[in-house]
Structures are given as structure tokens and as C-alpha cells.
């Protein structure tokens, strides 16, 4: 069984195996298919129309399945690898081991945002940015410049305490747990982390930065934590909602999996704590 660990607790060997598997998916072309899929959903999910991957109740099950696909691809390269998660409410500075040269590398240089160290730096030659919206082909970051601070544990706690999964109109204007976690309203958790990292993470092609997976693995863990806190609250809506994925409706692009199939993460993986 796959165990997803806090990135701060990974051994040097676990970091190296994760990085090597990611680089192999990139080399083989499989990585960029994930970037493309994410960008397509980012562009097509709208508040007034069909919405599946973002700004909708299925934000959480959609990303759970998307991460499962990516994790299975990693495991096809190295069966020992699991997705680590980044608890950004705890590891909240540029000095976190996450950003060290033996893992994801650090922030970008000030002139052009180019990441200069680590396995994903353009200079290492293994991380061309192919799926992109502008002419730049190097990985970019600007940690902590567009927004000062990552969410705090107290802010996370305030969102976990929300008793309702999601609420009409089931989009970026909704109240409830999902939209406050996604960040379109309230203290802003998930969206703010994308903005804090900057560079590619701030764009629709955000999976170009491998930290995307560690960010979403933690968002996913927060969903699991919310379920533990609110065992009687379930995914909504449960039927007949135009443009929105109901509990028992299948989700694009897979078309064979429903939110109902993804509510229990223990069928697929557990967490270290």
C-alpha cells in the first residue's frame, strides 16, 4: 500500500528516487501530458458553464484522481515512490528543505525568475518547459513575492472547521469547505500557495513545476482531515445539477470514475500521520 509522507520527513534516498522518477516521466514525454490536461481544464472550467477540475465541488475528487494517475505513472518507473505532501502551513520559508538543491531547487533569480539550482533548473538540461503560454522554456519561480505569506495553521483550522462540503451555486462564489479550501473566497488556502510560489505555478500550466504535486497532495490530505472532522457531512450536490459533477456522475476526462468512487482515499493510499 502506498504511504504518502510529509516531504520534510523524506530520506535522501526517497528524495532522489522521487526526483529520478519525475525526470524519467519528463524524458519519456508522459509528464507533459499531465501539464496539458491540467491546462485544458483550467481554461474550460467556468463559473457559468461546465466545470469539473476547478471552481466546483469536483475540484477535490478531480485532483485526487489526477494525482493518482501521476503517482501510478511514477510507480511504473520506480515502484517504491509515493507522492510526498508539502504542509505549507508548517514549512513556510525559502529555507525549507523542499527548496534545497537535492530536492526541488530554490527560487528564481530576480532578473527573469529562472530557477538556477536543483534537478529542475534549465541549466541541468533535463527540464524543458514544452507546454507553455509564452516563449520562455526555463522553469520559473518567485517564492514569496506576489503574496507575502503562506497560509497559517490557524487559517487552515478555520477552513477545516466548516461543516458543509460545498454550497450553491457550486462555483467560485460558493461558501463552504471546498471553495474556502480552493481559495476563491475566505482566507484563501490553495490559490494563495500557487501565487506564493509564482512562476509557472501561478499559471494554468502550473504542473510544469513539480511542487504542484506536493501542494495538491497536501490539499488532498486536508480533504481527508475534513472528512475525519465531519463524518456526517458528505460530498454535494447529490443529483440533477446542471454543469456540475454530482456525487454519482462520472468525471471527465476519465469518464469512468465518480466522486463517490474517490471519497475514501484509503482504497488507494494512506498518509504517514
Amino acid at each position: 500500500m502506498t504511504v504518502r509522507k510529509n516531504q520534510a520527513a523524506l530520506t535522501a534516498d526517497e528524495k532522489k528516487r522521487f526526483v529520478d522518477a519525475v525526470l524519467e516521466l519528463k524524458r519519456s514525454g508522459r509528464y507533459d501530458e499531465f501539464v496539458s490536461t491540467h491546462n485544458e481544464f483550467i481554461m474550460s472550467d467556468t463559473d457559468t458553464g461546465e466545470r469539473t477540475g476547478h471552481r466546483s465541488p469536483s475540484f477535490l475528487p478531480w485532483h485526487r484522481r489526477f494525482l493518482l494517475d501521476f503517482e501510478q505513472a511514477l510507480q511504473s518507473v520506480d515502484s517504491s515512490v509515493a507522492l510526498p505532501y508539502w504542509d505549507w502551513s508548517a514549512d513556510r520559508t525559502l529555507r525549507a528543505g523542499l527548496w534545497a538543491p537535492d530536492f526541488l531547487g530554490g527560487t528564481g533569480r530576480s532578473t527573469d525568475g529562472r530557477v538556477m539550482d536543483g534537478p529542475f533548473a534549465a541549466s541541468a538540461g533535463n527540464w524543458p518547459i514544452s507546454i507553455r503560454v509564452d516563449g520562455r522554456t526555463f522553469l520559473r519561480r518567485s517564492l514569496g513575492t506576489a503574496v507575502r505569506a503562506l497560509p497559517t495553521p490557524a487559517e487552515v483550522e478555520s477552513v477545516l472547521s466548516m461543516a458543509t462540503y460545498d454550497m450553491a451555486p457550486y462555483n467560485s462564489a460558493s461558501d463552504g469547505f471546498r471553495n474556502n479550501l480552493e481559495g476563491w473566497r475566505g482566507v484563501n488556502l490553495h490559490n494563495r500557495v500557487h501565487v506564493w510560489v509564482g512562476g509557472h505555478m501561478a499559471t494554468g500550466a502550473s504542473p510544469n513545476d513539480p511542487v504542484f504535486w506536493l501542494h495538491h497532495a497536501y490539499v488532498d490530505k486536508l480533504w481527508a482531515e475534513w472528512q475525519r472532522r465531519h463524518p456526517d457531512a458528505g460530498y454535494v450536490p447529490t443529483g440533477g445539477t446542471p454543469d456540475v459533477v454530482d456525487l454519482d456522475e462520472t468525471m471527465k476526462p476519465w469518464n469512468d470514475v465518480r466522486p463517490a468512487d474517490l471519497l475514501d482515499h484509503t482504497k488507494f493510499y494512506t498518509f504517514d500521520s
Partner: protein
Amino acid sequence: MPDITRRRALTATAALAATAAFTTLAAPAASAAGHDRPMPMPEHPENFDEVYKDRRIQGRPMSGGGHHHEHGGGFEVLIDGVQLHLMRNADGSWISIVSHYDPVTTPRAAARAAVDELQGAALLPFPAN
């Protein structure tokens, strides 16, 4: 962008064309905490055409026809003549493909944010536009 991506994007666009009607959205009790910005809700964005940081940015009602999908509520933004994928949120705020998680109040602000983000790089024409 590789051709495979263009085809996929166009497929996604076609599937959504039917849902892309222009809608004048009601002003909500906007909540943008975490952004520290007011969120006024103009019914129709103002046209603009200016040079910002040596880039020409334009905003205007989208010209009709073709396979446009109008996630910008029928409004389009161009940077040096290349269309920027724009989206309007339910609370009236705006985001673009290069600044997708950080809503701003107007299409002009989204265009300027995109110029800031691009740091001089050319925007690639996006077939899905």
C-alpha cells in the same frame, strides 16, 4: 505548443461553445479576503488601448464568429496583438492564463498583471482562444 495539445484544446473548446453565452452577472457580496482588494462589479468592462511597460495592451468586446469561447464574458484582451486567455469569475473579478489563481478587478488589471508576469517574453497564440 505541440500539435497534440492544440487538437485537445480545440476539442475542449468545441464542447464548451454552447455554454459560452454572454451573461451579465449579478453583483454578489464579493469576498476577496486574501487579496486585499476591493471588488467593484462593473456591468461592462471599459475598452482600453495603451502602452504598459513597452507592451501594447488592448481590451475590447470580442469580435464575433469563429470558435471563440467567451469565458471573458464577451470581452477580449490582447498583448502586442496576441490574445490573452481571459476568464471572468462569478464575483466580477478577472483572471488570465498566466495569472490564474489571483483575481484582479478589471480586464486592464489582468492585462497589466500578464505583462508583469511575462517580463518581456512573447505571449504565444493560444488556439483555444
